[in-house]
């Protein structure tokens, strides 16, 4: 419409110039229907009431204007001034009042909060004077230098105001304008609007900021963040002791009070504390995070026998933290020896505590020299009591390692016992010990010497003679 109006105005006002310019137009001549047929250069000429009327084609006019703009810029600018007609709003027109309506007391918001913000518009102009109003909500997040538009445009037509109050509401509901923010701080909102006459910003159009009840010329909120937290007991690696190719899984769980996505990074450290792997997942708050060692190829055969550790770092994009370093997994070494047939026999069937017991273990040791085998026994009185050590060398044949010793004392009488062999290499079960339990209790008899033994009689005589000697000595010293 504007273009057509400009064309008509230019046509009427510049007619003489156009007439003069005939024959110099850069536009190619066009054959257009004409009432007189005597046209040339794209213009047609008619006679009406004795006046000669030259009718220009639009393309010709545009072409001329472009040529003038290029060739005669000063005249062209002057022409523009001549043609400019400033728009004058109707008399007694006043710009509508536009405010932000924020009917919430929540001034601290998080990135995931859905904001419900409204535009309150009051237009007291008579309906025949009102023009359409176009609105945008603009926001400036923490760290931003400029406002950006959030949500889509809202439009208020002249007849969309309440007849009673001359006001209306437009809403931007469910906004999350700072969902990607990487900083916290002040968040500011304002409304941009145009009433077909001028453009306004609610933060600058008033002489001073307006705020009453829930209505604001500029709305200032504070963007805050709660860092994610680790659910302590959720952190584990299973199994903590495993072969390198076992399905080892690291598990953890983190909770973010704001509902932010949590970025979880698993750092696997080797036995020197160096980072072995660094794996990241982004998960919803409160969900279990699992890193499978086999999926990521964390461990290989060369890692057998090594002790690893790990920790998690986690963050929501704004705040982050790291757990302490947890041990695990301990990868079992590859088997070096094969053990079997652990056994214990008492010297005789009475199984007295003062007797010797014969502990044995069958060991097939093909490659380890100086293999150390320790024997331990456990009773309620003496748990995990070290007994003795044997050292064997590598051999093609299976070897039976024997311990023939007296492992108990009187306090172990009438008790069951367990025993285990601890060796300095890994066996076929990825263990470094093998044990067993006694078949029955140690005999409850306490004293190993019968009453008629020389030891017992000697003890008795000693006590009696000591008393008699004491009597004689005391009588001589104190009674004379």
């Amino acid at each position: 419409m504007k273009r057509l109006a400009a064309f008509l105005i230019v046509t009427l006002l510049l007619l003489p110039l156009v007439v003069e310019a005939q024959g110099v137009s850069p536009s190619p001549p066009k054959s257009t229907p004409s009432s007189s047929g005597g046209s040339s250069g794209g213009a047609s000429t008619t006679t009406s009431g004795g006046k000669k009327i030259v009718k220009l084609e639009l393309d010709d006019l545009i072409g001329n204007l472009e040529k003038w703009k290029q060739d005669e810029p000063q005249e062209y600018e002057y022409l523009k001034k001549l043609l400019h007609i400033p728009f004058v709003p109707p008399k007694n027109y006043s710009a509508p009042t536009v405010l932000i309506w924020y009917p919430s007391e929540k001034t601290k918001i998080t990135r995931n909060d859905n904001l419900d913000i409204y535009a309150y518009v009051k237009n007291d102009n008579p309906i025949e004077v009102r023009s359409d109003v176009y609105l945008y909500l603009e926001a400036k997040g923490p760290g931003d230098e400029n406002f950006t538009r959030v949500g889509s445009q809202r439009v208020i037509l002249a007849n969309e105001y309440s007849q009673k109050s001359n006001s209306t509401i437009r809403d931007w509901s469910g906004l999350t304008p700072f969902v990607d923010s990487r900083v916290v701080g002040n968040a500011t909102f304002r409304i941009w609007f145009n009433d077909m006459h001028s453009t306004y910003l609610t933060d600058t159009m008033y002489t001073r900021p307006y705020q009453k009840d829930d209505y604001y010329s500029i709305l200032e909120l504070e963007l805050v963040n709660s860092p994610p937290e680790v659910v302590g007991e959720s952190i584990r690696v299973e199994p903590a002791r495993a072969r390198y190719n076992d399905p080892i899984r690291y598990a953890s769980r983190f909770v973010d009070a704001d509902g932010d996505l949590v970025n979880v990074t698993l750092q696997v450290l080797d036995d020197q504390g160096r980072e072995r792997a660094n794996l990241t997942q982004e998960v919803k708050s409160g969900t279990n995070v699992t890193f499978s060692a086999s999926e990521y190829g964390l461990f290989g055969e060369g890692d057998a026998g090594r002790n690893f550790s790990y920790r998690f770092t986690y963050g929501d994009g704004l705040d982050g933290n790291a757990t302490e370093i947890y041990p695990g997994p301990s990868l079992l070494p590859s088997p070096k020896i094969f053990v079997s047939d652990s056994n214990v026999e008492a010297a005789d069937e009475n199984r007295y505590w003062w007797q010797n017991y014969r502990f044995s273990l069958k060991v097939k040791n093909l490659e380890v020299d100086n293999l150390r085998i320790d024997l331990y026994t456990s009773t309620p009185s003496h748990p995990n009591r070290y007994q003795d050590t044997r050292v064997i060398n590598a051999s093609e044949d299976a070897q039976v390692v024997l311990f023939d010793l007296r492992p108990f004392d009187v306090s172990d009488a009438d008790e069951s016992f367990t025993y285990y062999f601890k060796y300095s290499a890994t066996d076929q079960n990825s263990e470094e010990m093998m044990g067993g339990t006694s078949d029955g209790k140690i005999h409850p008899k306490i004293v190993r010497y019968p009453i008629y033994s020389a030891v017992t009689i000697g003890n008795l005589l000693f006590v009696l003679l000591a008393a008699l000697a004491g009597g004689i000595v005391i009588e001589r010293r104190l009674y004379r």
Partner: protein
Amino acid sequence: MSDLNETVATVQAVDISSGLASEGLSSFLAGIYSNGLLGVGIFIALLAGGVLLHRLNMDRTYRNVAATTHGGEVSPEDLREEMFTRQGSNFNAAAVAAWMLLFAAFAYFYFLTPEIFPGRNYYLVPTLSSGPVGFAAFGLFFLLLTGLAAAFIPKELYGYYELSRETKVAIMLTVPALALSIALSVQLGTIFPELDPAARGLAFLALFGSEVALLWPVYAEALGGIR
């Protein structure tokens, strides 16, 4: 024939009644010696009673002497000095040994095996009780522990009483009796956890019979004084 039947019936009745009596006595004795607190209580009560009666005896003697002096001054110390009688070296040595053995026998009887005091006994010291000299060490420990008391008790108890020959013999015989009690207690220790009620009963009788014999002069004097 009827006389014979009556005789047999009478003998059987006597056997049954005497059997019941001995069985009741045994169970009564077992009830005492297997009750550690009761036994210890009796042992201490007899000792305490002896000490108390000895003081009463001395006080009564002093009052009697003071009453016969008709106003003459006799101090208790002078009276004690005058009353003191030497009992002979052999008797004194035997009496001291007997008192030492009394305390040792008491310890062997109650504190050797876990049977009476499971939480307080010689076997809770496994290093000692596992060794070959454990019994001797146990006895020696109690001899030394009670040696001081045993050294002075005979002097005080037997120096102020007239002891008949029979009483002296009885006191001296407590030495073998207490040796028997100790031997039986050790025997019970060597067979533990097996039990020998007869040996325990005999050890108990030897122990408490000896204690009574050792305190008898005091009790006898007190009984005489009451009469």
